[in-house]
């Protein structure tokens, strides 16, 4: 038992509840949020790998005294290996992904604290609840537990959208909730079907039963459960047909809010994606379906990003499109491709946060997000523009940045798995991403400044420059030394498959 593991979920929840109670006590809210946010990344670093069984309910096989006292009807059958309660598993993936999630969370909170004169405890409540929810999803081995925290994460996301100043925030949040009222219950129904068939919602137990032929994994109920859970997954992460609303959600929040929203989405994507792979990957069509939806997400999102004129919406579409790369890695289904997909997920979490906060500076200075009305801003924010340029290069996969490393791994895995078409499409989409990014960079920073463009004289907050700088350093470090994370991820994936 490792007592630090549940603290990664419990500490943000307690912080959220206290901050909510503090309400509008500005200075206390800011101080407490900052302190908790800076402490969070330390927990995954100092925590050892292992399991945590809530209520001490470890499998019977781990408790020899208890097992020997039970009748052979229980002790000699597979029932003794089953998980009685909820358990958290903390391995290499969780360590790395949670560290980077908490880093992005800290930077988003740091930027939010500095970009607003007054900050409410309720807003911080939403941020910390979002962080704790996705952490629980990543740690949990229980698919129903994951669903509960998924719903909390969705509500937190809606709250974060509503805290922005955008005129269309209510409409977008309402649409997201309405679509969520389809996606969420469908996901829960899928889990219900699975529970009805297997009698457990623990993913390890379900996998054990499938591998040992204890259930019919081609029965209609099992197949139906896959369809419903898969549909819930594409809703949760924004693959088509949910890519439009997901990009709208990203574009309606504040820059730091958008950075956090996409980070939450990436972790949800990975958590549910791995659960689906573990339970259903033996079905022959699963990989094909994941590849189909991921490709559709990439193609539709990148083409929409190309023709959009709203800066935040473009980044939103690019963020959704990049998720497709992770999906392709899962879909190919080899050790290398899944490792590359997880690496891509970590990179996307960092790069997209950089771009949202970096381009957020433009909106802060001009109050305009239409790229046709922008221009010449490089003279106002030269440092930020260069960092954003490098961030864009990282997203497009320009060497030696982190995006290049993960995309190269994905392309290699596609070639190794006899899917050269996927490799070509990934290269093509990277080129178009590069083109899209250069288009918006030129429109905002390089083309002549329009005469009617009013730029505020106030400087971009140093916190935003610091945040973008830190994220860029991470991009460069991971680009130059990918083994810092890839080794751990490879070990994790080796144990997964």
């Amino acid at each position, binding site marked *: 038992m490792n007592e630090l593991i549940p603290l990664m979920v419990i500490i943000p929840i307690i912080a959220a509840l206290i901050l909510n109670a503090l309400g509008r006590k500005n200075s206390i809210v800011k101080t407490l949020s900052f302190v908790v946010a800076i402490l969070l990344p330390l927990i995954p670093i100092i925590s050892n790998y292992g399991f945590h069984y809530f209520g001490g309910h470890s499998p019977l096989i781990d408790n020899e005294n208890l097992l020997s006292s039970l009748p052979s009807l229980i002790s000699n059958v597979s029932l003794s290996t089953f998980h009685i309660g909820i358990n958290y598993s903390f391995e290499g993936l969780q360590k790395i992904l949670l560290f980077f999630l908490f880093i992005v969370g800290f930077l988003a909170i740091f930027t939010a604290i500095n970009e607003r004169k007054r900050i409410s405890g309720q807003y911080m409540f939403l941020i910390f609840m979002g962080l704790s929810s996705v952490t629980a999803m990543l740690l949990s081995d229980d698919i129903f537990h994951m669903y509960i925290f998924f719903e909390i994460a969705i509500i937190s996301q809606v709250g974060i959208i509503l805290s922005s100043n955008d005129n269309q925030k209510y409409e977008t949040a309402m649409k997201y909730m309405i679509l969520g009222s389809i996606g969420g219950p469908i996901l829960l129904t899928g889990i219900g079907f699975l529970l009805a068939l297997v009698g457990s919602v623990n993913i390890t137990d379900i996998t054990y039963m499938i591998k040992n032929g204890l259930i019919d994994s081609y029965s209609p109920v099992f197949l139906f459960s896959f369809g419903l859970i898969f549909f819930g997954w594409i809703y949760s992460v924004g693959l088509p047909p949910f*890519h439009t609303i997901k990009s709208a959600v990203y574009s309606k929040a504040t820059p730091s809010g958008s950075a956090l929203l996409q980070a939450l989405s990436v972790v949800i994507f990975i958590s549910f994606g791995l659960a689906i792979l573990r339970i259903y990957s033996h079905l022959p069509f699963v990989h094909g379906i994941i590849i189909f939806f991921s490709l559709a997400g990439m193609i539709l999102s990148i083409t929409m990003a190309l023709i959009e004129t709203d800066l935040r919406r473009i980044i939103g579409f690019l963020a959704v499109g990049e998720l497709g790369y992770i999906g392709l890695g899962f879909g190919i289904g080899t050790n290398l491709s899944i490792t590359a997909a997880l690496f891509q997920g970590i990179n996307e979490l960092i790069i997209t946060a950089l771009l949202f906060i970096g381009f957020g500076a433009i909106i802060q200075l001009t109050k305009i997000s239409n790229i046709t009305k922008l221009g010449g801003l490089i003279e106002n924010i030269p440092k930020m523009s260069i960092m954003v340029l490098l961030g864009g290069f990282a997203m497009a996969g320009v060497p030696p940045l982190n995006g290049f490393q993960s995309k190269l791994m994905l392309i290699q895995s596609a070639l190794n798995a006899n899917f050269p078409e996927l490799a070509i499409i990934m290269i093509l989409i990277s080129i178009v991403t590069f083109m899209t990014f250069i288009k918006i960079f030129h429109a905002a920073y390089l083309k002549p400044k329009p005469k009617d463009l009013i730029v505020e004289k106030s400087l971009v907050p140093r916190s935003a420059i610091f945040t973008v700088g830190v994220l860029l350093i991470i991009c460069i470090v991971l680009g130059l030394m990918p083994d810092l994370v890839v080794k751990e991820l490879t070990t994790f994936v080796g144990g997964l498959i």
Partner: protein
Amino acid sequence: MDIYILIHNSVQKFKNKIKKDTITNENVSSAMAAELTIISTILISSIMLRHINVLLTVLIILGLGLCLITNMPLISKLKKEQDDSLNKMMFYVILTLAILVSAIYWGVLK
């Protein structure tokens, strides 16, 4: 009609199709790039059907190619279908759910 003429005509239509936005060189070239991206990626991804059946792949690629080129410009239609209308979103969500569940349920059982 010659394919080049078809493509040329469709490019000319871009201007009318995106008239809501300010017309710039960037807009038109972006729309053209998006058009070419969507056609090329769909055609390349359909090659993956070779894992199922080669003859089927050839037929589908030929049919898709013809269909895509004769329906150009596609991107304006796609943009129209992917706006923020809740009705359209709901329609595609329900459609996806229906196709997904039906294909998995009956496709595998048969």
